[in-house]
């Protein structure tokens, strides 16, 4: 069987075996949650509750404050204790969060308006998705209703479901595909209707062949095709995934919609189903708690805003843990504040033991970073230009095309941190040039 794939990439140890057999459990609702008003890409939501307000589960606590923004809902039934600034792992600075404490009352839900989606219009479904506060659960947290309403001049003909889960360690998408295939099917059909597309593809890495087979069975007699992809990082990167499945190349600097494709993550698809069919806003998500420093790795449905300390405790974190990472080890964010809450984009928590510290050595021009780069860049050169502050030259060498997947830094025998200098150079360049050339 020929597996679909892309050019470049690396093979980090998969480590999926730690959590792949663990069935998804429902994680107990925490006493206190910390819900960021910036729980999505774009403008932070506007807070619509105040201290001492009583809130129901699913009640809106934040409203979108711009075109690219999203609703935020209360993940539990309780009372608003405070609205305070706490450290935001994605932005790297303190940001406003609503602190909600559980009360003794029985959990009370405030559900979304429910319609039969088969007979609803596209606009009605999109409105529900928007009201549900759904964002990309793969990690980027881009508001889904925006992604699903491309400008009319972009004709979309293909929907791709990203089930690659190429990040090492993480297994939640795999478990969702095995355990929630029927919900996935409905979610895909709803999304296809919203986009008015005739075909949908699911891409899954070949280390999850049982999921491929299971979905093929469930999706029989539907227009949804399931593809096995080569197990290679970053197979789940949007542009690489699109290229592997459709052979279309998203133009440099462009978006998937430029080639008529919309990509959605497995978790997002299920969130869409839950919102449209069950009327449930996005107040919980599936994630994996795993890593060598976790004694009992697990997959669970967790309320947004749950402090990760509780998840780590449930997983039994060992004393020699050195890194706690939101997400997987290739692109995740290391945190040292364990009160950090789960975000809408937190696909897992990976706790790693102390490793041998690596020391940056001079580049020996081995060319591994060039071979590894899925975007056809020369990371060694970008690193060099960036560290010499030659930002314009770096941009001329494709700096802005970097997807920050970390393949170059992973494979570098000299342990050079290309991603760090590239990220910094991007920030400085965009700040200096205001995003314009």
């Amino acid at each position, binding site marked *: 069987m020929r597996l679909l794939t892309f050019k470049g990439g690396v093979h980090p140890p998969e480590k999926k075996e730690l959590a792949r057999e663990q069935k998804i459990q429902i994680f107990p609702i925490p006493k206190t949650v910390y819900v960021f008003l910036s729980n999505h890409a774009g403008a932070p939501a506007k807070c619509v509750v105040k201290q001492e307000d009583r809130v129901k589960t699913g009640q809106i606590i934040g409203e979108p404050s711009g075109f690219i923004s999203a609703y935020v809902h209360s993940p539990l039934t309780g009372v608003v204790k405070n609205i305070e600034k706490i450290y935001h792992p994605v932005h790297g600075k303190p940001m406003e969060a609503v602190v909600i404490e559980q009360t003794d009352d029985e959990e009370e839900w405030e559900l979304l308006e429910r319609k039969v989606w088969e007979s609803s219009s596209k606009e009605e479904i999109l409105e529900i998705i928007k009201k549900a506060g759904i964002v990309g659960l793969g990690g980027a947290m881009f508001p889904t209703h925006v992604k699903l309403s491309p400008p009319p001049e972009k004709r979309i003909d293909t929907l791709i479901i990203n089930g690659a889960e190429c990040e090492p360690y993480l297994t939640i998408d795999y478990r969702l595909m095995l355990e929630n295939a029927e919900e996935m099917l409905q979610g895909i059909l709803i999304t296809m209707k919203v986009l008015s597309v005739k075909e949908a593809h699911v891409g899954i890495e070949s280390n999850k062949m049982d999921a491929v087979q299971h979905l093929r069975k469930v999706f029989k007699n539907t227009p949804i095709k399931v593809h096995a992809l080569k197990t290679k990082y970053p197979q789940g990167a949007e542009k690489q995934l699109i290229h592997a499945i459709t052979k279309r190349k998203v133009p440099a600097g462009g978006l998937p919609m430029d080639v008529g494709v919309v990509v959605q993550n497995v978790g997002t698809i299920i969130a869409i189903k839950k919102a449209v069919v069950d009327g449930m806003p996005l107040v919980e998500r599936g994630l994996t708690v795993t890593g060598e420093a976790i004694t009992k790795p697990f997959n669970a449905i967790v309320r947004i805003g749950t402090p990760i300390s509780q998840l780590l405790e449930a997983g039994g974190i060992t004393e020699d843990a050195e890194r706690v990472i939101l997400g997987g080890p290739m692109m995740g964010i290391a945190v040292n504040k364990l009160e950090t809450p789960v975000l809408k984009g937190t696909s897992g928590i990976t706790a790693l033991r102390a490793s041998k510290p690596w020391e940056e050595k*001079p580049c020996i021009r081995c060319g591994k970073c060039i071979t590894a780069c899925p975007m056809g860049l020369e990371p060694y050169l970008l690193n060099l230009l960036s560290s010499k502050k030659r930002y314009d030259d770096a941009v001329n*060498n494709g700096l802005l095309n970097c997807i920050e997947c970390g393949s170059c830094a992973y494979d570098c025998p000299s342990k050079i941190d290309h991603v760090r200098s590239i990220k910094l150079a991007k920030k400085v360049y965009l700040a200096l040039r205001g995003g314009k050339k």
Partner: protein
Amino acid sequence: MKLVVANAPHVRTDDSVRKIMIDVLIALMPAVIGAVIFFGWYSLIMCIIGAFFAEFLEMFIVRILRKQKDFKPDGSATVTGLLLALNLSPIAPWWLILIGVMVAIGVAKQAFGGIGQNFFNPALVGRAFLLMSFPTYMTTWVAPKIPFSKMPWDVVTSATPLGILKEQGFSKAIESSGYWNLFIGNVGGCIGETSALLLLIGFAYLVVRKRVTLTVPSTYIGTVFLVASVMYLINPERFGSPLFHILSGGLFLGALFMATDMVTSPMTLKGQAIFGIGCGVITMVIRLFAGYPEGVSLSILIMNGLVPLIDRATKPRVFGEVKT
């Protein structure tokens, strides 16, 4: 629990420069053993002096002169020293390797900024320096006659097959050695360059360990074969057969271990192909038309100098970028 905050990726390959260099050293061992068999124990002494002195000198320069107190040797100097020793005549005096290493490590490598910064292959710069400064020592050869002999000085000097080709023509050259001896290395030449077989065995190890790509060696040797074939058709007696050209001189040592040096060769596969073809053409031009009988080291040095240009000309295409 002490948590580290660092940026992604949080896992790294356990490869390192040192591991690569150790693999290269292992890959050179068959050639060293071959040298002992063909030219005697003195060759081994030369290899050991070269390797250790190079590493010592690098430590001295980096730690004392460049004041990097925490510098840990990565083995690249050892490789340079060993390669230089393998590039000397089996009867070169022992102090010759010291001078060569001083030029290789001190001038060609550290003066440019150390590992990764040098434009030219340090071992080849050392060899080129010795060839110009001590031409007699560098071009006096012996025939390998007594396996495991202690001292090589009492043996009769002889020319290398390429030297014979230049002076007396192809029939004499092939008569004196024969293809089989050329292949296993039972001919006159530098300490480590004569045996294509042993060098190939070592190189196979590097391929298995995925330390090298085959692009440079295959294009280099392929080009030599092609050019030699064409010239053979024109004048077989003067130019020699393609197989003879592949097996003689330092081609295998150069193509497998010197031209493939990561620091001084292009980074993309396309660039490496251009590099290999360039090396092959220049090698043949020197062998057939220039004053020296052998052109491997010079051709690689010339192509080393062109690497920045080749790298620039063979930039990979950015994903999704349309050719304009």
